[in-house]
């Protein structure tokens, strides 16, 4: 991050105690919630590495629950996340794992929606409240959530990527970073598109309508 803003230094406004173990954890599961299309009936978290080691004292468990409930990192209610989950009837569970992770601050987030649909997300808190989503439903991905991000589940066939980028161009949305991931040739694939401009709900509908081969689209 070469081009620091003054607000990277004086800021962020956040609920303590730790930018990586608390603020970053809120962001991770907030994004998992968005990937699950904000439908959270049940949320299960597994903490690895330093998250498992010092997570209790940093309130990492509460932070993850708060994010899954839709709170932002500066929400004053994060510390009451267990109570709020109970009041809303959201079932939550937290496990601390001894398994060594790839990154010291890793969480596995499983969200079960009201219709029983399962969303699995793995992410890392990489420091200073910054995060990286590294896996969605068993598929490797990589995005930071710093930019407006489109996550598109599509069928792996020629032309899908071109169609999506064409529609985005028509909508005057500039692509900052774009990555494609797949299980295998012709199988399920994901593309993550980080953009300079936010992609509104109207735009999202337009992309789904105009591009063939898109199974699922959500914006983070």
């Amino acid at each position, binding site marked *: *991050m*070469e*081009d*620091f*803003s*003054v*607000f*990277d*230094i*004086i*800021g*962020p*406004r*956040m*609920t*303590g*105690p*730790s*930018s990586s173990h*608390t*603020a970053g954890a809120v962001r991770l599961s907030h994004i998992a919630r968005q990937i699950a299309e904000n439908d959270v009936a049940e949320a299960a978290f597994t903490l690895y590495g*330093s998250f498992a*080691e*010092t997570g*209790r*004292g*940093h*309130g990492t*468990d*509460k932070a993850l629950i708060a994010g899954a409930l839709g709170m932002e990192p*500066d929400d*004053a209610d*994060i*510390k009451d996340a*267990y109570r709020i989950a109970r009041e809303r009837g959201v079932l939550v569970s*937290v496990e601390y794992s001894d398994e060594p992770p790839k990154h010291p601050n890793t969480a596995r987030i499983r969200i079960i929606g009201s219709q029983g649909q399962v969303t699995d997300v793995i992410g890392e808190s990489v*420091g*200073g*409240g910054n995060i990286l989503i590294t896996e969605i439903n068993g598929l490797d991905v990589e995005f930071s959530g710093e930019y407006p991000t489109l996550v598109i589940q599509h069928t792996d066939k020629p032309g899908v990527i071109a169609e999506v980028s064409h529609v985005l161009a028509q909508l005057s949305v500039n692509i900052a970073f774009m990555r494609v991931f797949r299980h295998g040739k012709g199988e399920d694939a994901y593309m993550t598109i980080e953009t300079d401009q936010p992609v509104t709900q109207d735009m999202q509908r337009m992309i789904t309508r105009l591009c063939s081969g898109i199974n699922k689209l959500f914006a983070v």
Partner: protein
Amino acid sequence: MLLSEAFANGESLRRYCLENGIPIYEAMMRREEKQSECSREQVLAEMQKNLDVMKESVYRGLNEKVESVSGLSGGEARRLFKYGKHNPFSGYTACRAAASAMAVVEVNASMGRIVAAPTAGASGILAGVLIESARQRGWSDETMVEGLFTAGAVGLLFAKNATISGAGGGCQAETGVAASMTAAALVEISGGAPVQALDAAAMAMKNVMGLICDPVAGLVECPCIKRNALGAVNAMLCADMALSGVTSLIPFDEVVAAMYAVGKDIRPEYRETARGGLATTPTGKAVAQRVRRMQGE
């Protein structure tokens, strides 16, 4: 000199300010406007939001019962603040500012809301000193916001040319940088020149160069909270020195470079890993074990 070149280092910032006849905070505001493509009003309003949360965190830490998630901290800021009325050795002002700094980090440890400056673990120094000074000297919010931009500029130079994370450079990179930022802000608010502000920042860092990051149980509590108290006093003392005409023999940019080199030399055990220093004392280890056994709720 171009604005885009002004923030390369302390010397370029000093020259840019001199050429334009402006303080550091004005240069920082101009850069932020340009970089974020926002108006002056928007940039100031965003900083005012930070100031409001800073005030709230000092107030809460000094007036409410706060206790950390681990149970290790809370309430000591209030104790020191009250004691400060009774002729303390460190002086009324220093005692109150130190207590205010501790208050913010205690609130942070209790999962309260704070503003990282530059980090959560060092969030008390700038907020505590600025708010207590404003209370005693009648500074307006506008003046305090200017001070926050001065502080931001100094922090930005450390971030760019060294590091502002405990994992990267030890505690000197957190509470040391916060004290440097705060010292510079006090100098500019008091009418000191940019060169004096940078000297104050340099002196504050020199005073704690090499300070390790050794959090007990890996938590932002011990020794972080009390090091914020020290950072507050360090900042005020260095501001006073600079305003009195005392100068730093080693210029700001060289101090930043030295601090960075020292930070990289600090063994990983002493960089936020809780594998050395106070964290591995018998008491530190016992506390860590107790915290690990705690339940989630």
